[in-house]
């Protein structure tokens, strides 16, 4: 709705400092406010009518309404859950299970799509002909095939053709891959493991201090210290050393064939792998193009200036080009993150138990309360998307060009 006040010059009343203003019905400011109130009232009334009408109609047709169903026992099983769940839990819990499964695939998808996308975007601009062309081929193929087909490809063409559990492929007898999923050993900490945790905390603190010291030294003396590699080694090395010194206080839970399936260890179900792979690979190609456009948007003079200062290609990219490119990259990158999250609802096509599959699928069907469930699901996607947009906007503000 346009704001009438913005168009109407609001000054005349103030300029003519006459004791008597125009009558209220001719006063543009009063009229602007009145019309806005009327418009707002109509919008609210319109929304309420739809809501009320839906309720009345459902009641007259004998369809149960309300959110009471969330406390009822669900009574159906779910293939994969991050929190303990069984048939005796409530429909409310199926909502949480589905939500967490959606967040899991969205989070891991965004993480890996960003990593692969940045690598590809840089590779696309590489002066090495082969690398640049390979990146180009990857991008043009994956970007132009619909994500649903890519999910089907991974699920039906790749993972379905794997052998069954009794003939599964294995690596060193510890990692097993078959058409039921990927089984890996999973560590269970034993007594004494706390020392490793302490070592990790010390290493992280030490690394943070090291980075600060290195930055201050560079600011003061101009000399650089490879703080990135040093802190990486610290964070990785110290806990490992402590782990080794304390005699490895971890029990490995190895997967083993028992009856129909493997038991023990951790398991990635094929539905998750297919969805994750497809979303990551599809979105990575868009991110690669965004990164490329961001880098190309930085004037070539910047590269030349960096070379003139004696910076090598790597540091020039890292210190000069990418920080400036980020200003161009971040806004469209946010859209890609939102797209990936929303595309994760394609999970339902291959039976990955995400929010749409579990809650808007089975739960909706068992309870029949379509209006409530669809509204809740839409609210969830809206909330996730707005949160991502909010966080990315914060980051965007941090990297925008500050004019001094």
């Amino acid at each position, binding site marked *: 709705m346009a704001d009438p006040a913005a168009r109407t010059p609001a000054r005349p009343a103030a300029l003519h400092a006459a004791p008597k203003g125009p009558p209220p019905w001719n006063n543009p400011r009063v009229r602007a406010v009145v019309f806005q109130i009327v418009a707002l009232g109509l919008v609210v009334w319109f929304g309420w009518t739809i809501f009320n009408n839906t309720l009345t109609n459902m009641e007259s047709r004998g*369809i149960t309404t309300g959110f009471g169903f969330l406390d009822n026992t669900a009574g159906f099983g779910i293939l994969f859950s991050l929190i303990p769940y069984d048939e005796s839990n409530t429909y409310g819990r199926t909502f949480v299970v589905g939500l967490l499964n959606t967040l899991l695939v969205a989070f891991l998808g965004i993480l890996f799509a960003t990593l692969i996308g940045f690598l590809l975007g840089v590779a696309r601009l590489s002066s090495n002909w082969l690398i640049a062309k390979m990146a180009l081929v990857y991008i043009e193929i994956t970007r132009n095939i619909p994500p649903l087909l890519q999910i089907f490809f991974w699920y039906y063409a790749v993972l379905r053709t794997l052998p069954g559990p009794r003939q599964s492929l294995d690596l060193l007898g510890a990692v097993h891959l078959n058409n039921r999923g990927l089984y890996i050993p999973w560590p269970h900490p034993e007594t004494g493991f706390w020392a490793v945790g302490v070592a990790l905390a010390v290493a992280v603190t030490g690394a943070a201090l090291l980075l600060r010291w290195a930055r201050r030294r560079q600011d003061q003396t101009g000399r650089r210290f490879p703080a990135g590699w040093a802190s990486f080694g610290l964070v990785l090395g110290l806990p490992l050393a402590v782990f080794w010194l304390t005699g490895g206080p971890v029990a490995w839970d190895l997967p083993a064939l028992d009856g129909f*399936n493997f038991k023990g260890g951790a398991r990635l179900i094929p539905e998750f792998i297919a969805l994750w792979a497809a979303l990551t690979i599809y979105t990575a190609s868009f991110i690669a193009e965004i990164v490329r456009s961001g880098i190309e948007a930085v004037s070539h003079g910047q590269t030349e200036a960096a070379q003139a200062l004696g910076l090598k290609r790597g540091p020039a990219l890292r210190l000069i080009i990418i920080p400036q490119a980020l200003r161009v990259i971040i806004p469209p990158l946010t859209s890609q993150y939102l797209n990936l999250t929303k595309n994760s609802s394609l999970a339902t096509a291959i039976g990955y138990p995400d929010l749409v599959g579990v809650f808007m699928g*089975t739960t909706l069907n068992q309870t*029949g309360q379509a209006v409530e469930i669809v509204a809740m699901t839409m609210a969830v996607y809206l909330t996730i998307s707005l949160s991502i947009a909010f966080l990315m906007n914060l980051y965007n503000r941090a990297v925008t060009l500050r004019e001094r």
Partner: protein
Amino acid sequence: MIKTKAALAAGLAAAVLTAPALAAETLDAVKSRGELVCGVSTGLPGFSSPDDAGNWTGIDVDVCRAVAAAVLGDADAVKFVPLTAKERFTALQSGEIDVLSRNTTWTHTRDTSLGLNFAGVNYYDGQGFLVKKDLGVASATELDGASVCIQAGTTTELNLADYFRFKGMDYSPVVFDTSDQTVQGFASGRCDVLTSDQSQLYGLRTKLDNPDSAVVLPEVISKEPLGPVVRQGDDEWFNIVKWTLFAQVNAEELGVTSENVEDMKTSDNPAVKRLVGTDGDMGEKLGLSADWAAMVVAQVGNYGEMFERNVGETTPLNISRGLNALWSDGGIQYAPPIR
């Protein structure tokens, strides 16, 4: 100003458009359309599936055809709408279809909370398990730890959870949208077990490359009375669907078939006369023509014919009458009398 006026007009128009809809008179709607819109499955051999020429066949399809014959006098005046298990109730509630005939189990929750009415039972079923022969499993009690393929949004999902929990066994459910996907999952080895209503298992087994490589286990773990469903609040239409099915069962009981129905119009048996419409005003009471039931039997056949043609022992499904035999033959198909 103009904008405000437009908003006001839009608001009023919306208010008129969204005025509470009254329960539509389904019979009048079907008659004026000249066509019955019927919700069926996306493809389940014997129940509702399209053949090579695109014609729908099956026992659920025949229920739709029978209703069309009773109401419009033409068993072919049906438009079939394929629906997944998840879509079916919403499609009926919203008025997209006139009747749902899609191997749907009659349960308390569905009957009481969805605003729907079950109009009878055209097939008494029970849930079973299909497993590959080479697993060497002879009973459902040996299925601890199995992966099970199921169709989303079915009573099957709930029965399965109940059964495994009650037996203290573990399982992992692999849930798909359509029964075709569950068969694919089973065939490719994603799951050890395919579970569904037993009749469907026989039908789905025919879709495997080698149907003899799988067997249906003897256990039946639930009651699954399947039947047509209509919207609540239109009792006239509810009666028509209900009595069309009853007329078919009564016809079998009275020995009226699609072949002899014309001769039966001269019968002296008062029950037959009421059925074929040569006596009484049974059709009028339903708002239909006098020979409504005769048209149903002539064009679709009686219940027994419908059963044998679609799922009986001469078909690939090879299902015996069992529970679905007439009450007088040891089954439980029983219809109230037409009088």
